[in-house]
């Protein structure tokens, strides 16, 4: 491994950077087969090439984000130092994770990320929204299909098109139309969804909402929510605590709670929350399906993304 000719240096470099043409690769292969010294030089060269992936991190330490860990078993800081570059491979659920370094993790502009999309067709045929896309406050309009979104508060919501949901902040949204369900972890308690007829405040639960032209319905799958009427008629209570497997409907024209039998077809199924290494610091998001591409630039912020 002492010296190599400029010729070999060019071959090694071209192979490492993916710019070697067929003749160069054939030549390299031939040299590797014939000459033991070339073989050793080549192995030393690619080992340096591999080492630079790791060691370059040391020269750009500002880009490394410290993630507090949830479990004492995981040395998360080390994980990030080891993989802090753009695409890195690591896994939890049989999954691969990577970081996009385009934006800081504290960027206040984004409050949610699309974690799953099944046959989703967005309003205006917006092809830029896909699994892994970050969402700012604003209207999410789904023409058809189903999507799952994780808000920065830890709340997971599922929407079934056609639906219009306005993301107001990480703990507040408004369902203008369609079906939505939410799975709210303890840190997301207080998550509120407004509808045209009532507001639903979560008290730690899974619930579903269905909003159409004439009425809004809420069903609690597990736990309880507080539902508050938008109008305040004097003769009936303006709010109600709704518990597991109870459905309430509010007609826009009537403005009071009405008990209706639970029919699961009227609600979309809430997304599961995943067990394991999720929500370590707010800096990790779990995607249920593999994004179309893992190349840098696809994702707009600095989360570690996991998918299974």
């Amino acid at each position, binding site marked *: *491994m*002492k010296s190599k000719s400029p010729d070999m*240096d*060019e071959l*090694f*470099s071209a*192979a*490492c*950077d*993916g*710019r070697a043409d067929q003749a160069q*690769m054939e030549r390299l292969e031939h040299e*590797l*087969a014939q000459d033991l010294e070339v*073989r*050793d030089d080549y*192995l*030393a*060269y*690619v*080992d*340096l*090439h*591999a*080492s*630079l*992936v790791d*060691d*370059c*991190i*040391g*020269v*750009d330490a500002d*880009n490394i984000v410290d993630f507090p860990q949830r479990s004492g*078993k*995981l*040395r998360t800081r*080390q*994980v990030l130092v*080891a*993989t*802090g*570059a*753009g*695409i*890195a*491979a*690591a*896994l*939890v*659920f*049989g*999954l*691969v994770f990577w970081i996009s*370094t385009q934006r800081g993790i504290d960027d206040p502009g984004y409050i949610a990320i699309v974690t799953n999309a099944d046959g989703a067709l967005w309003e205006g045929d917006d092809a830029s929204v896909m699994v892994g896309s970050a969402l700012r406050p604003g209207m999410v309009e789904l023409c058809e299909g189903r999507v799952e979104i994780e808000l920065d508060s830890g709340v997971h919501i599922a929407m079934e098109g056609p639906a219009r949901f306005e993301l107001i902040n990480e703990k507040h949204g408004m369902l203008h139309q369609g079906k939505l369900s939410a799975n709210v972890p303890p840190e997301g308690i207080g998550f509120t969804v407004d509808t045209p007829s009532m507001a639903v405040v979560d008290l730690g639960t899974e619930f579903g909402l269905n909003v159409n032209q004439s009425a809004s319905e809420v069903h609690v799958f597990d736990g309880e929510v507080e539902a508050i009427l938008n109008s305040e008629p004097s003769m009936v209570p303006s709010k109600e605590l709704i518990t597991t497997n109870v459905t309430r409907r509010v007609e826009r024209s009537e403005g009071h709670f009405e008990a209706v039998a639970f029919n699961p077809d009227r609600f979309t199924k809430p997304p599961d929350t995943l*067990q*394991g*290494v999720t929500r370590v610091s707010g800096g990790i998001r779990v995607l249920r399906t593999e994004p179309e591409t*893992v190349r*840098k630039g696809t994702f707009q912020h600095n989360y570690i993304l996991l998918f299974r």
Partner: protein
Amino acid sequence: MSELTDSEKHEEFMRLFLGNEHEVLRYVLALVPNLADARDIVQETAVSLWKRFDDYDPEQPFAPWACRFALNKVRHHWRREKRRQHLFDEETMEFLAARRTELADVMDYRREFLQECLCKMPEKSRSILTGYYFREETVEEISEKTGRTVEAIYKALQRIRRGLSQCIQYRMEADSKARSTT
């Protein structure tokens, strides 16, 4: 591994994979030197490893087990890519993998000097390396940022790696000499 709960299994797998990920990348790069392809192969390997994690014997070291999966992925990669570009044949791959194992200690020794050599590097070179290896920018992106041609960036990368190789070699020899005189 099967006696662990799912959550424990995830964590154990993550710990093992992350601890050995770089060794797997090194192994793959020896056989597929193109960094972008090698990274893809490591990701594919990771998914296979997780699927077969129940078969892993915790008494055995993880890296050799993982590298066996990586080798299969490399073979798949070759079969897939052979049509569009020439890559190493099976025989070349086997002797590279074998020789790499023989040289493991020498490689470890060389790596000890890399960080020192990186510290001595001019800012301009360091910024190219950071873009290419850390931020995973393409040569085209670096070219656009720096206002230099794509060809110039390729040449710069080649020159930087050559300089680092020479620096490591020089320091290794100096270190050996110092050790032999004490």
